[in-house]
């Protein structure tokens, strides 16, 4: 049973436009959500996070929105740049047996077209 789902395996966007990557989750006990970006042949790198007590967090071109009632979060990239082409993973963490652990989604491959 996948607790964190990224239902779109891939997304293509024109340079300069908005990219919206979506993530759904099932566990209401998740209290932090994080986005990671992964380039080919490299490990994932942390991008942005949001606490469950907030509904928005912004960092430059990247904004994460959290809708707890819908158990949905999204990452907005504005404006999109060719260098943003990568796989984006959503991750959620919750306290389990006294320690926080991440559950990752399967990723969405973003391609920004020049």
């Amino acid at each position: 049973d996948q607790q964190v789902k990224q239902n779109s395996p891939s997304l293509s966007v024109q340079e300069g436009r908005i990219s919206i990557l979506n993530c759904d989750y099932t566990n209401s006990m998740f209290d932090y959500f994080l986005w990671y970006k992964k380039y080919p042949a490299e490990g994932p790198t942390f991008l942005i996070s949001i606490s469950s007590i907030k509904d928005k967090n912004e960092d430059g071109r990247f904004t994460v929105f959290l809708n707890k009632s819908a158990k949905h979060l999204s990452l907005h990239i504005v404006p999109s740049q060719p260098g943003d082409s990568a796989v984006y993973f959503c991750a959620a963490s919750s306290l389990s047996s006294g320690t926080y652990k991440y559950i990752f989604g399967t990723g969405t491959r973003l391609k920004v077209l020049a």
Partner: protein
Amino acid sequence: DAMVIQNPRYQVTQFGKPVTLSCSQTLNHNVMYWYQQKSSQAPKLLFHYYDKDFNNEADTPDNFQSRRPNTSFCFLDIRSPGLGDAAMYLCATSRDLGGNQPQHFGDGTRLSIL
């Protein structure tokens, strides 16, 4: 200035022949993690160390073991690799176990089983 280094990047072993994957970090982080990622799937946590305390995930096969001889190094041992163990293995670190602690990943070791 790589901070989490995994060696080797590619490892080929024979069915049933023990193999060890290596991870080192220069961040002086307390926590080190090992994830398994199969093609088009989410990274799956195998286990983690908080300092010298080992924490195994309930569904990690007994075939997988880990050692952390000091703060900087952590090893993943697969005692008798099967064909199903072919995957990308990712090492990650975090300063502590808080839910909002970003994890820093290495570039992974891709393991092939002949």
